[in-house]
């Protein structure tokens, strides 16, 4: 084969191969994009949440050292925009100053005041907690919250949040979140919030040696207020 013939053969074969490869890559990307349109993943704040919670023990929906003397309880509704604001702007400071060092722990309890979608979201958080990813789930849900009762709390959305939160067995998580036991627990936590006299979310209470049981703090406050309440309860 002469050099010219070889060059012509090379150009033909290479052109065809490059075309086929480009089509193959485009097909792979289209498949990937189409599967994420239904509810992934371009979830916001995954890295930030991971950094906020990194190295802090979690059990159920309790974040922090299980042996901590003080427990700060947040009664929240995952659909509540004010709770989201609190999760993004206030709680990170409290977590860094009081929880990371082991002085206190924070517990999330459901107070579903917005609608049925809040119940589904709360149950999903409890189920994620059973796999040690409860706070990752709560924080990621807040950061990707949609408009209240708009239908965004779909199975696809909840699954995407659970996966991004690091829930290892989606099958078990699905079973737990849909169980009557979990739904009943969401209702019981909401009933407790009403019994404590709360009328909105997020509401806080603190429990510690000096607090005399569960002491209610109300619906709002700054990071400084919560830190003072924790210090007073020790």
């Amino acid at each position: 084969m002469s050099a010219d013939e070889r060059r012509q053969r090379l150009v033909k074969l290479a052109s065809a191969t490059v075309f086929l490869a480009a089509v193959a890559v485009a097909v792979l990307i289209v498949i990937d994009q189409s599967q994420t349109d239904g509810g992934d993943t371009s979830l916001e704040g995954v890295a930030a949440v991971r950094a906020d919670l990194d190295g802090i023990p979690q059990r159920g929906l309790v974040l922090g050292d299980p042996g901590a003397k003080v427990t700060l309880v947040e009664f929240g509704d995952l659909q509540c925009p004010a709770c989201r604001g609190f999760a993004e702007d206030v709680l990170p400071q409290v977590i860094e100053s009081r929880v990371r060092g082991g002085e206190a722990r924070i517990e999330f309890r459901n107070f579903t005041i917005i609608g049925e979608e809040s119940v589904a979201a709360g149950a999903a958080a409890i189920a994620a907690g059973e796999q040690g990813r409860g706070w990752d789930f709560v924080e990621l849900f807040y950061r990707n919250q949609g408009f209240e009762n708009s239908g965004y709390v779909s199975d696809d959305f909840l699954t995407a949040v659970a996966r991004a939160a690091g829930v290892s067995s989606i099958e078990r998580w699905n079973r737990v979140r849909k169980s009557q036991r979990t739904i009943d627990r969401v209702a019981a936590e909401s009933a407790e919030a009403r019994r404590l006299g709360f009328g909105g979310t997020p509401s806080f209470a603190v429990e510690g040696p000096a607090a005399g049981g569960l002491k209610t703090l109300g619906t709002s406050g700054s990071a400084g207020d919560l830190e003072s309440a924790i210090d007073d309860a020790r």
Partner: protein
Amino acid sequence: MADLVGARRRSAAPRRLTVPAEGVLRRIAAFLAAFGAGVAAYIAIAEADGGAPACLAGSGGCETVAASSHSELAGISVALIGVFGYALLLVTALLRGDGARMAGFGLGLVGFGYTVYLTYLELFVIDAICQWCIVSAVLMVALFAVNAVRMLRYVGTPA
């Protein structure tokens, strides 16, 4: 003076890039493909049942990437697809002739293109870096380069 003229003549002469013998390129490609298949297999095994490969220094990037829906394509683990792709590249490295040369180049190009896309996802969509995925990406880029040289230099020559 004569030395200077001689030096100028030598530097003005066109340089010929030395391309390794095809057998050397095939051995390099076979090594890279086998190594890549091992890395992809580790990621696939670690991700089975919802787990994640171990990131060094506990950065957590591997968990985040493994948890992303981009870690699966049409329900199949991307890592598993990677094992299959590296295995095919290994076969093209072991075979002779223009068919194997073009197939190696084509598969390398597909792997390179999809690797660029996955790295973009890690950096700008998932917002996390999996060190094992970076190792695989480097191997795939190297495989593409070796297969491209093999194709450009040896297509049309006797096997």
